[in-house]
Structures are given as C-alpha cells and as structure tokens.
C-alpha cells in the first residue's frame, strides 16, 4: 500500500517510516510540513496519508487543516491524523468531513505496532479509527447531552465506544470477554435505539459513530 507521511520531527518521521515499511507499506514520500505534504499527496496520489496535527510554520493545527482539505479534494485517499493529545472537537471535524476513511490517533499508539498497522489497514479499507482517549471524551459528552445514548445500558455504551474506536465484532468480543454472538446482539440493539437504518455492516458502524458525535 502506498503511503505519504507528514511529520516535522526527523527522528519520529524516520521511526514511523521504518514501522510502516516493516509492515509492508510503501512510503512514497515523507513531508516535514503541511504545504510539502499536500504537494506530495497531489503528486503521488497514495492510498493512505498519515500526518501529525502540529506542524510548521504555525505549530498549531496545520496538519489537521491539511487533512481536512485533502479529504475534501481526494475523498478516495484515506487520512490518519496523529497527535500528542486528543481533542473531541478535532475528532468531530474529521468525522464530519467523511463517511469513513479517517483515523485520529495518539502518537504514542505507534509503538503498539501490530494494532497500529491493523488500524491503518482498516481505515484504508473504508473503516475508521478513533483513539480510546478521544472516544472516552466523546462518550462522556454524549452521556451528558444525548438522550438516546444515555438510555443505552452500560454494556451497550462500552460496545459503542469500542465500535467508535474502529474495532471489529471479534475484537470487541475479545476485549469485553463476550461471545461474538452477544456482541452482534448488542450492536443490533444499539442500532435500534439510535434509529439507524439497516445497511452494510461497516457503513452502519460509521453512521453510528457519526450520530454519536453529531448530537454533541
């Protein structure tokens, strides 16, 4: 899979490149600021873009803005945004820019290489990946303001949170020590309570998360 990286710290850029190449990804370009990143993406049209949020010149949210522009311009390219800290507002902006093909993860997650690479592949395949940290923030807010979410049982809320992180049913089952069948039951009840139309499975997951966020 062809990837373009955006990261201003040389050491981390190099580390990330090694991790990706070790996982069978082909890094076609590695940019050190947002302008260079957008140019490289336009040039190489990769399948996946991975970018830091904080980048020169303003060291603010340059990377996020670049990611949003890329999503609008090239909807077929998946974008994973990395950051040292999580903000629910950034997650919301990213998610409202698309139906899937986005990820928002803590940089620290890179070190859990297998999980990280798995999430990248999920996103590239049309899914999504949200960091547990930001999902926790969103669950907290949804509980405060969204009636539908509040009415879910605690177990269903846990399942929804893991879905938002982009986990598959089997992974959710393993995490919560449930049978996969029980997880399927929980998810269908969640769809019912949130009034989500029945549709392709992965698309419904994205919709569930979108709903989750759009009401906050």
């Amino acid at each position, binding site marked *: 899979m062809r990837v373009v990286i955006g990261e201003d*710290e040389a*050491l*981390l850029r190099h*580390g990330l490149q090694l*991790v990706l190449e070790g996982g069978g990804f082909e890094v076609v370009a590695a940019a050190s600021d947002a302008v260079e990143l957008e140019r490289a993406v336009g040039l190489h049209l990769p399948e996946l873009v991975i970018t830091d949020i*904080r980048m020169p010149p303003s*060291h*603010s*949210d340059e990377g996020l803005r670049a990611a949003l522009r890329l999503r609008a311009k090239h909807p077929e390219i998946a974008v994973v945004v990395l950051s*040292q*800290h999580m*903000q*629910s*507002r950034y997650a919301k902006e990213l998610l409202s820019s698309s139906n899937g093909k986005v990820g928002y993860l*803590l*940089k*620290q997650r*890179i*070190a*859990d*290489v297998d999980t990280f690479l798995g999430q990248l592949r999920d996103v590239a395949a049309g899914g999504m990946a949200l960091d547990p940290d930001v999902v926790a*923030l*969103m669950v*907290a*807010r949804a509980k*405060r303001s969204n009636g539908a979410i509040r009415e879910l049982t605690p177990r269903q809320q846990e399942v929804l949170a893991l879905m938002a992180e982009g986990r598959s049913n089997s992974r959710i089952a393993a995490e919560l020590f449930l049978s996969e069948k029980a997880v399927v039951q929980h998810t269908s009840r969640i769809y019912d309570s949130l009034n989500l139309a029945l549709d392709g499975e992965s698309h419904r997951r994205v919709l569930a998360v979108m709903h989750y966020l759009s009401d906050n």
Partner: protein
Amino acid sequence: MAKKAPRLKLARSLDRSLVVIFVAGLSLAAMEWALLPVAGPIGHVMMLFPVVTVVYLLAGVRAWHRRPGNRLGALILFGGFAVFLGGMGNGDIPVFVAASTIGATLILAVIVHMLHAFPSGRLKGRLSKVTVSAAYMNSLLLQAPGYLFRTDPAAPFLFIADSPSVAALARMLQVWVGVVVMAATAFVLIRRLVQADPGQRRVLIPLFAYGSLAALFVPLSTQVLTPLLGMNMESQAALQLMVLGGIPIAFGHGMLRGGFAKTGELEELGSWLGASGGTRSALAAALVRALGDPTATLSFWLPRQGVFVNEDGTPVPSVAQSTNRGQEEIMVGSRKVGAIGYDTTVIEDPALIRAAGQVVAIAVDRERLTVELRESYGALQRSRERLVDAADRERRRIARDLHDGLQMQLVLLALEAQQLAKSPGSDAGTVERATHLRRGIDSAAAELRQLVHAVMPAALIERGLAAAAEDLIDRMPIPTTLELELDDGSCPSAVERTAYFVLAEALSNALKHSHATQIQVQLKIVEGWLHMEVCDDGTGGADLLAGTGIRGIGDRVDVQGGFFELASAPGEGTRIKVELPCA
C-alpha cells in the same frame, strides 16, 4: 459638574462699559444716518454706511463680551469706526468731511491688522508687526499728499500747495507699499495655515481667503469692475460696503467657532475654586473655560519619577518646540507642582497662562497627591499584568518543551521496546519484559499528557476558551453540565486564559474538597463582558482566605479588571461567579 460661574465685579464692570460703547456707537450711526443724504438719488448706498457701522458694532461688542482677554473685539470696533469715518465724507459738514478724507483708506489697514492678529487680537512676530505698521502708514501718511498737494474737490480746505508731481509720486508709492504689504500678509497667512492643525484650518482658510480678497477688492474694484463689467459708481460703492460688512461677521464668527469659549476672568476662576473645592476633572474644565482654549491641559508633576502625568496618572510627553503647543509650569513657592499646556495660536501671551497657574497652584498641589497615588496604582497594575503574562508565557514554554522533547522521546523509546520484543531470536522472557516495558512507557506518556494538559492545554492555544472548556468538562469524572454561549476567540487571549485557569481551579476544588456529585458551568458573553459561573452541590464552606487556589482565582480576575464572587455557606454548595471585561 462645574457650576455656572457667577459674574464678578470686574466682569460686570466690563459689561457696563460695553453697553456704553454700544449705545455711543449706535448714536454715531444714527447721527450718520441723519447727516447723509439717505433720501437722495443714491440714498440706498448712503444707508449702507450706518448699517455696516452697526454690523461692526454688534460683532465687536459680542466678541469683546465673549472673550474679554482677546483684543479682536476692540479691533472690530475700531474697524466700525473706520467705516463710519469713510461714510461721513458724503455729508456736508466740513470737519467731518476733512476727517473722512484723511482716514479714507483706514479700513484697509484695519482689515490687514485683523488678518495678522487673528485669533488672539495680538500681533505675533516681527514680520506681522512691521507689515501692519506699514499698512497703517500707507493708509494715513501716504494718503496725505493726495489732498495736501492736489485740489480734492471733496475737501478743498485741506489743500496747501499745488504740486501734482509730489501727489503722483505719493500715489505710486502708496500702490507699491500696498503690494508689498499684501505680499507679506499672504506669506504670513500661508505659513500659519501650514502650521495649523486640520480643525483650525477649516476655520482659518475661508476667513483668510475672505479677508485677503476684501483687502484687495476694495482698492482694485475701481480698476477692474468698472472697465470690465461697466458697473457704475453707485453699484460699485454698494458692493464695496457689503464686502466690508462681511468682515466683522466673518472674524467674529471665526473667533467664536474656533473654539474660543466664553472667557471668564481669572478672578472668577479663583472664586469658583473656593466654592467647589476644585475636584479633579472640574479643575481642568474650569481652566479650559477660563483660558478660552479648548485644548488646554493640566498636568501634575511627580518629583520622585521626574515626570508630568495627566489626571489618570499616565505620563504625558513633553512639548515639542516645533508644534503650536506651549507649556507653562505651575509653581508653589519655588516648588514645581504641575503645568498647563495650551495652544500658542489661541493664547499668544504666556503671562495669561502664568497668572492662571498662580490661581490654581494650591488646588493643583493638593490634587497632585491623589494623582501620584493613582500613578503608583497604575504602575502596580501594569506590573501585575506583566507577572500574569510572564507566568502564562512560561507555562506555554514548558508545555511546548515537554511536547517537543519528552513526549517524542517516549514515543521513540516505546517503539524501541516494541522492536526489541519483536526482534527474531528473542526468548519468551525477553518478549514479555520488552512488552511490559512498552506498556510502562505508554502509561508514563499518558501521565505526561495529563501534565501538559494541566500546564497549558493545546485546545486553549489552538482554538480558544470555548474548545478548551468543552475539553475540560469532557474530562470531568462526575456529571458536569456546560452551558456555552460564546464563540472561539471572542475575547482577548489573556482574558480567555484567565477564565480558563479560573474554571480549571474551580472544578478541581469542587472535585477535591467539596464532595460534589454534580457541577454546573455557565460561560457566556453579555455586552462585552465574559460571565462565568461554576456551581456545585457539595459541602460548601470554601474560604477565600484558606486556600491559595481560590485566592489565586480572585487575584487573576482582579488583574484583568474583573469581578469575582464566592458564595459557599456550609451545606449549601459552592457558587463561584466571575465577570471579565472582553473589550
């Protein structure tokens, strides 16, 4: 505010004198009306002489009454006399005809005098004095050969000897002196226009233009109007008189519109001070009124700092030499206590300012102490703002250093531990220990994230108060509601930072000490003020003096010029209310 000052003895005396002058002037005009052939064939022109005289009389008396310290009023009255004199030549009483012949062109010199003396009524600079003297000489002395050495049909009794060549020479000389006088006048006026500020220019340009044109029109109209327009003598004379009649109106109006408020006597200022106690703003206002200069300023001397400050305690810049600003120091004995700044184009005589300074000196000295206090309060406030700012800057720097340095190091270390775990040939024990190491590094990184967030949250820097407050509430472990009515970046960043840290402190207090089960937060902007309210249902009993945290909240809010209120009766929860100015 300032009471209307009572008219004092001296002022009432002036008023009475003006009434006498006015009545005398009216009598002269009435006499002229009676003596001139107003019923004759050119009666409508003859009538204009007394009418224009009365116009000068009204304008002059009004200007003198409104500004007793200004000589322009007297000058206008003198101009009225010159017009009166010019008219009397048309009668048939020999002594008046003689006087009229001698002073026939006096009015032109008076107009030049007015142009040079506006707005104070005093001549400023040697060039003006010489030019005006030349104008008077031209109109009185060089006029004389015309009736002394030539038979003037109007006043034959002034004739001494027949010498047409002397008369012609004097005539030519008069024209040339007139040209030089007008050129010098134009030079002086243009120079003044250049130095004037835009507000003054609006008054000066039309006035100078009209005055100069009038001074040129009256002598030149004979050469220009008659041949060009074929205007007869009567119409010409009528036009000249009407142009002259506009002069006192223009100067009188210009003087009053130019910001020359009614001037009281210094005596009035003194008595007013005694009555009012001379409160701060009233003192400066009374000074402005007394001096008739709306730009007059009062400043106070702070000997310790060696600077002049204004009423608010803000240092005032010293007067630059090139501008039209003048400054006179106010002394009590040999001690400097303050200064009066004024417009040198309005007030020509520094002695007037010095006299005013002596009147207000004691009040200024008393006021100086208050201003000194205000100045040191201002300095303290600025120092506090700098301290808060420096602290915030330091927080930002620490957060950035942790972010760029330590956090990245931890990612790389965790990556290395993971690679160790995955490297081929590692035994099971090594793999387990390396994975354990990575998890340890991850949890250290999580703690570091919290620390960085507490020091200076990225959301606050990148997006502003609303985003950062949402973030903070999302992380609360107990039910917390947030009512948000503001957009990101709607307040200055220093205010947003203050509000954020106050909110963080209030929430952490509620969590740590009050055993609250729920918290309500409200953030909104009402009429340029940021309102924040944090209520919990905990045990209450928070004390402003007990914890450094709450006191810190109060201090920070105070630095931003806001209000802080704490209600925390035992058993009734805690309510913290903060208001911060956003403008």
